C-alpha cells in the first residue's frame, strides 16, 4: 500500500462577502499530515477550520500558498481524499443506503457491491434499520452518522472530518470514538478531524493543533503520547488531563489576545 502525504504550505485565504467585506479566514497555515496519522484540529468558531478542510480537499484554491499531495500540487478533488462535511449534505431524494453508496456509484462500482458495503457501514453506525429511510425521517445525530458512513465508504487514504460528532449525545459519541478508532486501526487512513471537544481531540488523536481566530493560524501543536488501542480509563489519566489543560490554555490565550485586539 502506497503512502500519501498531504502537506499545506503557507496557505492564506480570504473571502469577499456579498456586502463587499473582505474576511481573512486563513493566514500562513503550514501543516503536514504524515501517512497513517490521526490529527485533530481545534479552534474557536469562525477561525477557518472548515475553510482549511475545503482547501485540503481540493474544493477551493487558496489565495496564496499551496497544498501538496505527495509533493504534487493539489488542483482538484481526488477520490483518495474524502471529506465529511460539517453541514448536512445528504441528497434528500435518496434513501440512507443510496446516500451512503453514492461515492461508490460515482466511481462506477456496481449496485450489488456498493449496497453491500453501504449496509456494512450502516451496521457499524447502528443504522441498519434505517437503510431504506429518507434523510428527512432521521434525527440530526443519525444524519451525521450517515454523513460519516458516506465519507468512509470509498476507504480513502486521507479522511478529513469536519465536526463529525457535533450533534450526538455523549454516549453515542463515545461509542463512535471507538468505532472510528477501530476503522482507522484497520484501514490506517490518514485522518484530520475538526472538533470543538478538547477531550475528544486528545482521546482520538496523536497530535492536536490549535487554531487562532481571524485570521486562522496554527498557534500550538500538542503531541499525545498514548498508544492504540485506547481505553476510556485514559480520560482520567494524569497525563491526559495535563494535555487537556495545555490545549485549553492555548485556546484561552488566543481568545484573550483576540478580545484585546477587538
Amino acid at each position, binding site marked *: 500500500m502506497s503512502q500519501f502525504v498531504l502537506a499545506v504550505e503557507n496557505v492564506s485565504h480570504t473571502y469577499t462577502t456579498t456586502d463587499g467585506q473582505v474576511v481573512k479566514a486563513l493566514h500562513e497555515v503550514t501543516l503536514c499530515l504524515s501517512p497513517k496519522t490521526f490529527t485533530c484540529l481545534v479552534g474557536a468558531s469562525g477561525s477557518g477550520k472548515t475553510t482549511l478542510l*475545503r482547501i485540503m480537499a481540493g474544493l477551493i484554491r487558496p489565495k496564496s500558498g499551496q497544498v501538496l499531495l505527495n509533493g504534487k500540487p493539489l488542483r482538484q*478533488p481526488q477520490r483518495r481524499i474524502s471529506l465529511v462535511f460539517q453541514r448536512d449534505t445528504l*441528497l434528500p431524494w435518496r434513501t440512507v443506503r443510496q446516500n451512503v453508496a453514492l461515492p461508490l456509484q460515482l466511481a462506477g462500482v456496481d449496485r450489488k457491491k456498493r449496497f453491500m458495503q453501504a449496509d456494512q457501514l450502516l451496521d457499524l453506525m447502528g443504522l441498519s434499520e434505517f437503510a*431504506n429511510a429518507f434523510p*428527512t425521517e432521521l434525527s440530526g445525530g443519525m444524519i451525521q452518522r450517515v454523513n460519516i458512513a458516506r465519507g468512509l465508504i470509498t476507504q480513502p487514504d486521507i479522511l478529513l472530518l469536519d465536526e463529525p460528532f457535533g450533534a450526538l449525545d455523549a454516549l453515542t459519541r463515545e461509542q463512535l470514538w471507538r468505532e472510528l478508532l477501530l476503522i482507522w486501526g484497520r484501514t490506517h487512513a490518514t485522518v484530520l478531524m475538526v472538533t470543538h471537544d478538547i477531550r475528544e481531540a486528545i482521546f482520538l488523536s496523536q497530535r492536536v493543533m490549535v487554531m487562532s481566530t481571524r485570521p486562522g493560524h496554527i498557534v500550538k501543536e500538542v503531541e499525545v503520547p498514548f498508544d492504540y488501542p485506547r481505553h476510556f480509563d485514559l480520560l482520567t489519566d494524569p497525563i491526559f488531563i495535563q494535555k487537556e489543560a495545555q490545549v485549553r490554555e492555548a485556546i484561552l490565550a488566543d481568545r484573550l489576545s483576540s478580545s484585546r485586539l477587538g
Partner: protein
Amino acid sequence: MTSLEIQFKRINTKLSSTWRFGWQIIWRILDWRLFIAPMITYGIYRYWLHTAESGRYPKFILPHPDTVWLRFQEMYADGSLLLHLKVTLRESLSGLLIASVIALVLGYVIARIRILNYILIPYLIFLQAIPVVAIAPIIIIWVGPDIKSKIVIAALITWFPLMVSTIVGIRNVSPQLREMMRANVANPLQVFWHLELPSAMPEILGGFKIAVTLSVIGAAVGEFISSREGLGYLIVVGRSISDPASVFLGVIILTAISLTLYIIVAVIELFLLRWKRAGS
C-alpha cells in the same frame, strides 16, 4: 386517524419499501377528497338540466344534456369521435414533446451559463409575448394546413412555462450539494443525473402541469383556424351550422383530455416526489 387507516399503516410497515410506495400511491388515489370535484360536477350538470328544461333559452343557444349525450353516442358509434380525439391528442402530445425537449435544453443552458441569460432571455420573452392565437394563421400558411402546423402551435404555446420552471429548478440546486458532488469527483453528466435533475424535478413537474393543459389549447386553436379533423374542428363546424350539441361535446372532450393529462403528471409526481412527503 380512523381504525382503517391504522390497520392500513400496520400492513404498510410490513411490506418492503418499494411496495410501501406502491400502496401509498393507491391510498392517495382512493382519498375521499377526490370525490368532491365529481360531486360538484354533478351539481353543475343538474343545474344545466334544470335550465335547459325551463325553456328560457332556445335550443341553439343551450342544448339539452340528452341531445349532447345522443350526439356522443352517435359519434362514438360511427367512430368519428375517436378519430377527432386521436388527432387532437396526437397534435398536443407531439407539440408537448417537442416543446419539452427544447425547453429543458434551453432552460438548462440558460440556468448554467450566465452569459446566455443576458443574450437569450430578451428574445425568448419576445417570442413568448407574441400572441400565438394571432400568428396561428401565418403559421398555418408557413407550415401547411395539415397536422404539422397544429403541432407547431401547440409547441409554441407550451415551451415557455416549461423553460421557466427548468431555469428556476436548476438555479435552485443547493451550492452545498454541488460542492459535495464535486468533492466526490462527479463528472458533469453525473452531477446532472444524480443532483440537478432530481433537485429540479418539483419545479419541472410544476411546469409540466401547466404545459399539458396548454398543449391541448394549442392544438384546438390550430384546428379552429384551419382543419378537417380534430375536436377543434368539431367545435367550429358545430358553431357554423348552429349545432350547439357538437360544440358542447367538443368542449367536454377537450376538458377530459386536459384533465387526464394533468392527472397523469400528478401521478408521476406522486411517484417521483415521494421523498418530499417522507418525514412529514
